[in-house]
């Protein structure tokens, strides 16, 4: 007997819809095994992960606080991934967006101008785009692999951040902690509800999602092409030249990641410090895939990942589950997603000896 994958003539829509369910199911199964090995309570952890985040209003606003940057960055990354432009340095672009935006309140400590926030928005976007542009330039001019360049740039961005926080931008009254001054209220987004950290910046990811969706629908007339696994190659992508695809993918991601970084320092964190990204740049890669690189799918995926990140914080306290368990779970999601997605384009064929030859001819 011989088991073999055989390419489907047309992709299976039923399987496509089943993929996220199976992916999540398998990830839960494997992490339950891991939790059991660690000696943690599985039911309590699962409850903390998936139910507890919805138990009170504050926690729900926190989900949306995490949902925003994940959605924003993932939507942009998905556009690039469709064109096979592998920007995995959104984390670095986010850092540079946050750094550029922070320049405004750091240098204009006394200012109460209403233009503070718009200036930070502009600089945040430009910071992210500038950082991504380095990778785009090196790729188009020197053919340098963007995977490695964007990754290295992330490490460099982190060092720039550390340099600023330990040197010129360190808060003189900050007891030598590596952080900037706290930003004035005029440099911060307004909270949506009293006593919560969720703020008006949530509008950015929503507007961006709508824009990307409209743009993609117009360019492709829907998503049939990609869903069928026939991703257009970079040269003909959306009518761009190969170079155009690289530039537009990277600049778009830099724009989104930069704004996400700006939204963090002008939102929940309210200053520049070492841990401004919360790993959103990496998690967004998972969100983009889990959402099948489709704007609608990405909305669900971003929400799901936001829930488990909040759930991870809960599980840390309630079930003593280390925070790295959340990263493992995210990794499992992507691994199982990629494996199960194969069944969208392939079917399993079981050949018995003798039948093998005729089956080969007919395919």
């Amino acid at each position, binding site marked *: 007997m011989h088991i*073999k*994958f055989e*390419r489907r003539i047309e992709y299976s829509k039923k399987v496509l819809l089943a993929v996220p369910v199976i992916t999540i199911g398998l990830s839960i199964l494997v992490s339950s095994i*891991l939790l059991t090995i*660690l000696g943690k309570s599985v039911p309590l952890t699962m409850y903390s992960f998936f139910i507890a985040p919805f138990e009170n209003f504050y926690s729900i606003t926190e989900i949306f606080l995490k949902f925003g940057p994940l959605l924003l960055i993932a939507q942009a990354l998905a556009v690039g991934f469709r064109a096979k432009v*592998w920007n*995995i340095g959104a984390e670095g672009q986010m850092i540079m967006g946050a750094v550029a935006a922070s320049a405004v309140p750091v240098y204009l400590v006394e200012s109460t101008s209403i233009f503070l926030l718009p200036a930070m928005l502009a600089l945040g976007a430009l910071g992210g785009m500038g950082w991504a542009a380095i990778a785009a330039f*090196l790729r188009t001019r*020197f*053919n*340098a*692999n963007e*995977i*490695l*360049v964007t*990754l*290295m*740039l992330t*490490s*460099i961005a982190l*060092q*720039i951040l*550390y*340099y600023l926080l*330990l*040197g010129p931008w360190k808060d003189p009254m900050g007891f030598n902690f590596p952080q900037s001054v706290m930003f004035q209220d005029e440099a911060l987004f307004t909270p949506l509800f009293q006593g919560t950290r969720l703020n008006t910046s949530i509008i950015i990811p929503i507007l961006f999602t709508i824009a990307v969706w409209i743009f993609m629908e117009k360019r492709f007339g829907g998503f049939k092409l990609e869903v069928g696994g026939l991703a257009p190659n970079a040269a003909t992508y959306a009518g761009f030249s190969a170079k155009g695809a690289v530039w537009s993918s990277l600049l778009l991601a830099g724009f989104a990641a930069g704004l996400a970084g700006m939204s963090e320092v002008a939102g929940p964190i309210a200053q520049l410090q070492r841990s401004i990204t919360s790993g959103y740049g*990496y998690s967004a*890669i*998972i969100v983009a*895939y889990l959402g099948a690189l489709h704007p609608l799918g990405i909305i669900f995926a971003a929400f799901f990942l936001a829930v488990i990140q909040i759930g991870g914080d809960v599980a840390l306290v309630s079930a003593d589950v*280390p925070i*790295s*368990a*959340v*990263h*493992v*779970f*995210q*990794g*499992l999601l*992507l*691994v199982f*997603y*990629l*494996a199960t*997605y*194969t069944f969208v384009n*392939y079917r399993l064929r079981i050949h018995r000896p003798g039948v093998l030859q005729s089956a080969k001819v007919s*395919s």
Partner: protein
Amino acid sequence: MTTIEFFLAGTMSAATVFLLAALGELIAEKSGMLNLGVEGMMAVSAAAGFVATYETGSHLIGFAVAGFAGIIVSLVYATVAITFLANQVATGLAVGILGLGLSALIGRKHESLTVASAGNVHIPMLSDIPLLGPVLFQHNIVVYLTLATAVAIGYCLKYTRLGLAIRSVGENPHAAQALGYSVPLIRYGAVVFGGLFAGFAGAYASTIYTPLWADGMIAGRGWIAVALVVFGTWKTGRIILGAYLFGMVSLGELIAQSLGAAVPSQLLSSLPYIVTIVVLAIISTNAARLKLHAPFALGESYDGSESR
């Protein structure tokens, strides 16, 4: 030991981490499998190797456990990318993310602990030569074994049937299959070999080079190893050279500090990453030449069908 001896000797030690990981990746890529999960494989095995060494006191057991851990993680990649035909880039990233999470999980109870460094061999006579002795002939045995393995791998790829099989699978899987080689089997083998060596690289990093555990200690060295394979244009000799160059660059921070240079430490910490980008740009400029050296079917899944 004088300062200059210290740095040159340190270069050899630092280079070994890069070289071990790059050799594993070279074999995987030669068979057509672009495994970007090296960082994750190294992180898991660095943690597992450290914990094993700490608990048993034996570096040998640490290396064995780390190698085993590397193989396990590489099998996840192989299963998804070879059997399930998933996109190799995405699968490598997935395994990398999974590996970093697992590594933190494995090492969480050993954070900031240290193990005794493994002893160095002193090659009789040679190690007494001034300058050259301490620089070249007083290292941990793994340094020499790695170099010997590198030479053996270069020979194997070029002159043996096994090497031919690996190369043909990476150049033209359809033809290789027609010749009677099992493409999936050879690719599994190559990826697992890569996992084993990433495992050794992780163990060397966490139990010999800097014998302590800190989450995130691999710090991009797995990615630099991936870059080294490109720098070396898939040739063993040049990869050895590249690994030693990066070994030296990664010591830049120490060198500058001892010279008393007034350069921000963050700039020096960025040096390996900056050099990687610059070298990558220089090497890649000649796209045609790079393509000539790269395994032709690198990154392509093989589903056994004739056309795609």
